[in-house]
């Protein structure tokens, strides 16, 4: 199951090669990740856990956990970072692997020793701009990233970015921004890139140990360190959270937007932040149904324009709702949600069960900043930037990277200013959504086009003001920053540049027609469609209500923005309210007739690597008066392959629920390695690299 048509991304074309999975011959693209090749062949379960014989599905799709481990040609490897080669023999890993009897003696070699002035970990938006800033100032930089392609999560973003065009490529899709920055970094002579390479440890003697090219071990000595390692997705504790098919929105983006695998048919999304909202948009673009987005909070935490867009497309948003449980035979088949009371306890009578094959967790991010802590402990100059510093949009990360680059230059003795406007912009770009306003739109009095700006909430975004040829769109408001709302006044020639660039798809053009009582609207549309003149479509207002129908009069496709413009004739009374058309049919989002109500909360898995349940942890905490999270290592919590990357974030709440005062909880100590490395790679048995 692959995505064969995508409105924004180029559909994959490459060499298909045969491989086997548990003896059966399958086909996949050479060089794609084995996990994606398996997904494309409908395989969702990669291993059978030692504890409870539980099937394990994909979880991070990012090389961080080890849930996608399979046996390839006799050896256990993470399938999400292993490129597919012709003839690979892939097998389900059952319990612990058996070490191959590979007894031939081979020579070992010491690590290659590299050095630089500044080591930058992470080639996402902030790491890339920090690298460029320092390299432009003449510092030697080594940039390490665990992926082949630089750009970090930018390359997974098919939506147009918010922010301002001058500072952070607003209006351009993330995936394109990633390419632009990668090009710049790759041609810079002061930057050495170690791609497809993972930092395993920052050591107290001023060196980083790097699993270079996922094949050998290399040391980098450095004077200073910038940590731009981004963030991790938070997880949730609910029964069934370990079934294959429950995973993070980030993993979903990787499968769908990077590897163009149609990973699911129907998904439920948990979390109404921008990540969850965009996840729904990515799903719909990939032809995957979204039964709804739920959030335990009473309001949407993401941008209103994102949420509005999703609602218009036909995805319901359930606020004050939690996920009660997920069930299925070895995979996700059903998910149950319920409304919560003021203490966040689910109200059984409100439970709804949906038939879904995937539950995406998008309940926020936590900074992945342990290398920063390691750097501080080792006492060398270290700064963090981007999500590793503070969770915010990629637009602010790009600005933040430049600032941190300059700050590091200052620390290293360079006399250079950081422009005050950079700092102001960085602050604005990372702003959470501000106030929302009611706006009264009016239709143009004269003949001719005018934009209607369905933009009601202060967010850091202004590309519409930049693209207007006649400067007819201006920000007006009390803040005096790009947070203010745009207003139209003046001339409009109907060029639709503002419609095409708006990341929120929140601008329409309207004009009166010669026929009284009717108006024409131009709507942006980011889905492939077969609409033709004469088609009647359901019109949606800003909040996602169906308000009537309109008739298509023309469609065109703008290649640069990869956005369709649909011109429609609609009743004049609806013209100022219509913002989009329904994409997903209402029948898709209906729950099952009866809700499932037999979920046992204690069965939820907290430590995924070692499969330790909430019930087991609660019992241990009670018996041993646990306040120090290190004590939980005894029942092996956080002792697995990932080293607590997911569960350590969940544990404090488990303790608090048992009555341990939050201020008395002590964190778990973290040690290298950040990723597991085969001994043969540490000993460089693949050969010496000079």
């Amino acid at each position: 199951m692959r995505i064969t048509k995508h409105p924004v991304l180029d559909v994959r074309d490459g060499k298909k090669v045969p491989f086997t999975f548990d003896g059966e011959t399958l086909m996949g693209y050479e060089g794609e990740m084995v996990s994606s090749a398996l997904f494309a062949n409908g395989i969702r379960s990669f291993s059978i856990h030692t504890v409870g014989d539980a099937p394990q599905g994909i979880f991070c799709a990012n090389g961080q956990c080890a849930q996608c481990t399979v046996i390839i040609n006799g050896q256990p490897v993470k399938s999400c970072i292993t490129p597919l080669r012709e003839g690979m023999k892939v097998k389900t890993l059952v319990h612990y692997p058996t070490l191959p009897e590979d007894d031939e003696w081979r020579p070992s070699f010491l690590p290659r020793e590299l050095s630089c002035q500044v080591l930058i970990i992470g080639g996402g938006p902030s790491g890339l701009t920090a690298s460029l800033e320092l390299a432009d100032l003449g510092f030697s930089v080594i940039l390490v990233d665990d992926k082949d392609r630089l750009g970090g999560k930018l390359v997974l973003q098919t939506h147009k970015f918010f922010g301002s065009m001058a500072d952070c490529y607003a209006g351009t899709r993330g995936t394109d921004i990633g390419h632009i920055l990668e090009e710049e970094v790759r041609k810079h002579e002061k930057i050495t890139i170690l791609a497809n390479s993972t930092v395993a440890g920052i050591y107290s003697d001023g060196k980083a140990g790097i699993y270079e090219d996922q094949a050998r071990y290399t040391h980098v000595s450095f004077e200073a360190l910038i940590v731009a390692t981004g963030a991790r997705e938070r997880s949730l504790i609910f029964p069934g959270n370990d079934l294959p098919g429950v995973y993070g929105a980030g993993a979903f983006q990787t499968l769908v937007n990077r590897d163009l695998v149609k990973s699911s048919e129907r998904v439920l999304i948990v979390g109404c932040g921008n990540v969850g909202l965009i996840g729904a948009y990515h799903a719909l673009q990939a032809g995957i149904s979204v039964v709804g987005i739920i959030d335990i909070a009473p309001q949407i935490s993401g941008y209103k324009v994102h949420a509005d867009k999703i609602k218009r497309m036909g995805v319901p948003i359930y606020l004050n709702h939690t996920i009660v449980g997920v069930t299925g035979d070895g995979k996700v088949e059903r998910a149950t949600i319920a409304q919560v009371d003021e203490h966040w306890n689910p109200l059984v009578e409100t439970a709804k069960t949906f038939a879904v094959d995937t539950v995406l967790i998008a309940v926020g991010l936590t900074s992945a900043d342990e290398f920063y802590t390691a750097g501080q402990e080792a006492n060398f100059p270290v700064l963090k930037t981007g999500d590793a510093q503070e969770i915010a949009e990629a637009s602010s990360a790009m600005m933040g990277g430049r600032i941190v680059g300059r700050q590091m230059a200052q620390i290293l003795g360079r006399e250079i200013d950081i422009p005050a406007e950079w700092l102001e912009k960085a602050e604005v770009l990372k702003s959470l959504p501000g106030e929302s306003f009611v706006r009264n739109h009016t239709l143009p009095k004269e003949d001719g086009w005018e934009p209607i700006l369905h933009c009601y909430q202060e967010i850091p975004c202004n590309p519409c003001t930049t693209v207007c040829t006649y400067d007819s769109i201006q920000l007006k408001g009390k803040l005096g920053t790009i947070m203010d709302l745009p207003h139209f006044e003046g001339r409009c020639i109907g060029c639709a540049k503002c419609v095409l660039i708006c990341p929120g798809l929140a601008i329409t053009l309207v004009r009166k027609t010669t026929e009284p009582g009717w108006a024409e609207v131009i709507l942006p549309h980011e889905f492939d469609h077969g609409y033709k003149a004469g088609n009647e479509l359901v019109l949606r207002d800003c909040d996602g209500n169906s308000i009537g129908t309109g008739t298509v009069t023309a469609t065109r496709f703008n290649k640069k923005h990869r956005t369709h413009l649909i011109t429609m004739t609609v009743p004049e009374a609806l013209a100022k309210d219509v913002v989009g058309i329904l994409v997903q049919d209402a029948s898709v989002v209906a729950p099952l007739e009866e809700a499932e109500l037999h979920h046992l909360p204690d069965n939820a898995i907290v430590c995924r690597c070692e499969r330790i349940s909430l019930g087991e942890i609660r019992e241990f905490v009670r018996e041993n008066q646990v306040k120090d999270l290190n004590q939980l290592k005894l029942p092996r919590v956080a002792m697995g392959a990932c080293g607590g990357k997911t569960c350590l974030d969940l544990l404090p709440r488990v303790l608090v629920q048992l009555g341990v005062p939050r201020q008395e909880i002590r964190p778990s100590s973290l040690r290298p390695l950040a990723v597991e490395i085969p001994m043969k790679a540490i000993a460089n048995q693949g050969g010496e690299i000079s």
Partner: protein
Amino acid sequence: MKTYDVVIIGAGSVGLPLAHSLGARGLSVVVVEKLPSVGQGQNKAAIGGIRATHSDRAKICIGNASLDFIRRLKPEFGQDVDYLEGGYLFPAYDVNIAANLKNLLPTQQSFGLNINWIEPEEVRERVPGIKAEGLLGGTFSPNDGHLSSLKLGGAFYRLARQAGVEFLFETEVVGFEVEKGKVRAVLTNRGEINTGQVVNAAGGFGREVGLMVGTDLPVYPDSHEAGITEPVQPFFQPMIVDIQPDEHSDNYYFYQNVAGGVVFCITPRPKRMGTDRRSTSEFLPMVIPRMLNLYPRLRNLKVRRVWRGLYPMTPDGKPIVGFDRDVEGFFHAIGMCGQGLMLGPGLAEMITLAIAEGKEEPEVFEDLSPYRDFSGEELLK
């Protein structure tokens, strides 16, 4: 304020079993620990080897007592600490090393150790895939073994609490009140604790605690780094100790634990003195090539985690155990030289007898006296 029969300083490899043993005799005991929970110092850094195979009379005696107790943990106390009696194997690829190991055998056997020379075939049977070329054989002591230090610490914590022992965490000793040459109270950052008997089980910080009553004992920590791999199906059982030094290191040792991971550790040369426990870049390139040289099959194992722990060393490599001469009611059990985990359980009963009944096992207490001549050197570290 409550007065305790005994205050133990340090909830680690020595303090925990001792707390259980004293508590089980009905004494009121409190353990004072500066870290937030049990075993967070060197206890959890211990790689888990438990042996009686030493070259010294006192340590062999304590080691045997430890092993006896550990064997009873599951059947008598219901505590599973992942103990596996896989033996210790010292392979030899060098004639001098082979000779040294063989020369030690009579002494070791005379103290009742079950240890023998085994031929290359048996070495390869016990460690399938170990390098055959140049293998001369090795010594093997089948009654030694390994366990989970975390689980052992947790087991003694549980047993001690069942025996009524109290614990004070995040409590740091700052001094003692001594009246007429006798301990009266322990002073901590959280107030004072009345007692007539203190046990200094502060491990790597035992010298500092001794100095608080004016006793300067020669305990100077150095440090070793260690690591563990991912778990795989069991493929060998013994602890393998390669004592042949190379350019940058002395011995290194590794075993596969019950959970399936291979745990390894090396002795760097020169020694790294001090209490720094941060990992260094030198460790993996130092130890992994040596392990793969000896045992190529390990190459496909993935290293999961590394850490560094202290070896609170004494000049002669033997622990310091005994009453303070100048301060009545002050007992030292420090300087375990990196073997607190394997000596702690055995010492617990002996120290309990000394404190509760004044009975001191002469073979142990003479050899390990705080006031002994420290100029000897240990043969088998």
